[in-house]
């Protein structure tokens, strides 16, 4: 069970150090910053040559000062932490519920067959489409946002856990049963590690959809969070704040995805040589 070992607190404590080192290293790495520098230059040039009203486009400098303003007054921390707490809580809850459900369905051919079409149907109705109903039911509250984000996150987690379990060769289970393994053993030694890469893929997809759904829900619910920040700025035409918010949204997602979720995925796939298929 090397993977659980890697996910244990020890690994968790070690990772901030290594990840900040990685950020430093990539900051120093010239090629990664170059395209952004080019982009900012183009943006600056466009802004300088045209005569834009500040309601339409602002200079990179204005965005930078808006960013500093939001950070110094602690506004950014408040909005960002609301969003991060929401997605973190939703991810944990979705894993806690989605993985066991995916297992229960995955080990049973009938259940899998019965649920697959339904899950696809749910995936067709994006979480955000349920927002109006959630608003009617729960009002403009955090509950509404949370329900939408969990809905968005949990479907890919269930789906991938299910397909992960079903993709495990039947012989693995048979071989262990002939070695005298109990049902619990099978889950612990075969199904869990066998489905893990697929579960991580599901989590990664779910985080991608969920983050977007969160931003969209926050825009409409208007009870804090980065979506609220950028949509609220819209009402006052504060383009500098909107762009600042967008950059923070993008950066947070990239950080969460690249520095937390992807390493777990690489670890399982690289170590076991299991193709995620």
């Amino acid at each position, binding site marked *: 069970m*090397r*993977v659980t070992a890697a996910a244990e607190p020890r690994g968790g404590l070690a990772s901030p150090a290594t990840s900040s080192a990685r950020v430093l290293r990539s900051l120093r790495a010239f090629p990664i910053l170059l395209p952004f520098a080019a982009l900012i230059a183009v943006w600056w040039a466009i802004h300088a040559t045209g005569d834009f009203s500040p309601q339409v486009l602002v200079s990179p400098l204005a965005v930078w000062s808006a960013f500093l303003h939001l950070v110094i007054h602690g506004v950014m921390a408040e909005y960002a932490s609301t969003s991060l707490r929401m997605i973190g809580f939703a991810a944990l809850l979705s894993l806690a519920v989605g993985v066991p459900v995916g297992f229960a369905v995955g080990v049973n051919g009938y259940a899998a067959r019965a649920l697959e079409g339904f899950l696809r149907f749910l995936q067709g109705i994006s979480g955000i489409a349920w927002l109006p109903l959630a608003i009617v039911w729960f009002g403009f509250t955090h509950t509404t946002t949370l329900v939408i984000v969990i809905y968005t996150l949990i479907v890919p987690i269930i789906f991938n856990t299910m397909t992960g379990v079903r993709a495990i*060769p039947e*012989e*693995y289970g*048979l*071989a*262990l*049963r*002939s*070695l*005298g*393994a109990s049902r619990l*053993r099978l889950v612990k*030694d*075969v199904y869990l*590690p*066998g489905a893990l890469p697929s579960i991580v893929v599901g989590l990664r997809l779910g985080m991608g959809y969920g983050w977007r759904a969160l931003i969209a829900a926050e825009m409409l619910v208007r009870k804090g969070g980065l979506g609220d920040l950028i949509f609220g700025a819209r009402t006052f035409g504060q383009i500098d704040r909107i762009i600042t918010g967008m950059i923070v949204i993008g950066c947070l997602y990239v950080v969460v995805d690249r520095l937390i979720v992807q390493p777990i995925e690489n670890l*399982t796939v690289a*170590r*076991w*040589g*299991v193709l995620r298929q």
Partner: protein
Amino acid sequence: MPDDMAKSTQNKIVVSGFRHVFETDDGPVQATDRVDLSIRAGEFVTLVGPSGCGKTTLLKALAGFIRPTEGSILCDGATVLGPGRDRGVVFQELAILPWRTVRRNIGHGLEIARVPRAAREATVGRLIELTGLAGFEERYPHELSGGMRQRVAVARTWAADPDVILMDEPFAAVDAMTRLTLQEELVRLCGATGKTVFFITHSVDEAVFLADRVLVMTRRPGRIKAAIDVPGRAAGRDWESFKIDSAMQAIVEQVLRLVREERGATAPAASAAVTK
């Protein structure tokens, strides 16, 4: 009581009137038809037959993965009701776990049986030596060659120390040269441990080389068509002398003829016309 004991050491496995029918989309298919066979304790029995003749069905029933539609399967005088630690299985697909190292794969059965760590490590170490896996203990299966993965699968089954070992074409997927080595190693391993082995294959050479007794199965629905004794396994076998041993080659010829008859008759008119 002693009478019972004597009987059980004589016949480890007794299959009588085994018939198995499974449902498909195109209706029921009869895999085997009244198979009768018995395997003595310590005996190495191989089973050859055309593809789809129900060999694997029979093995799965012996392992306890499927129940007979009709007939009975006894192991040590008791009806087989499910998989058990007394009957180990080596699959063609190997089924060793990709997320466990060689050492942990081989020791898995002992771990399940809650054998203490020290004893477990001793057994695993001995089997790693016996199967020539020394130096690869901490590797993962995807880092091994096909032949080595095969050895891990065999060692895992042997480590759990079952009385009976069921092997389903375990060497079908390895290259020809490696296969010869593995077969010789298997003969040695069986000589050293004295297990009762039931081994399925579609290679006649392999069947004769490994066995005390070769069983030939008819095409589907499979029945046991013939049983041929192969003397002298206890003395050990290697391919070089096997190939020039005229008595052995005569047996190979005989088995080949029996299998050929079944193959020629697999499909009705159309394929018969082709063979003419």
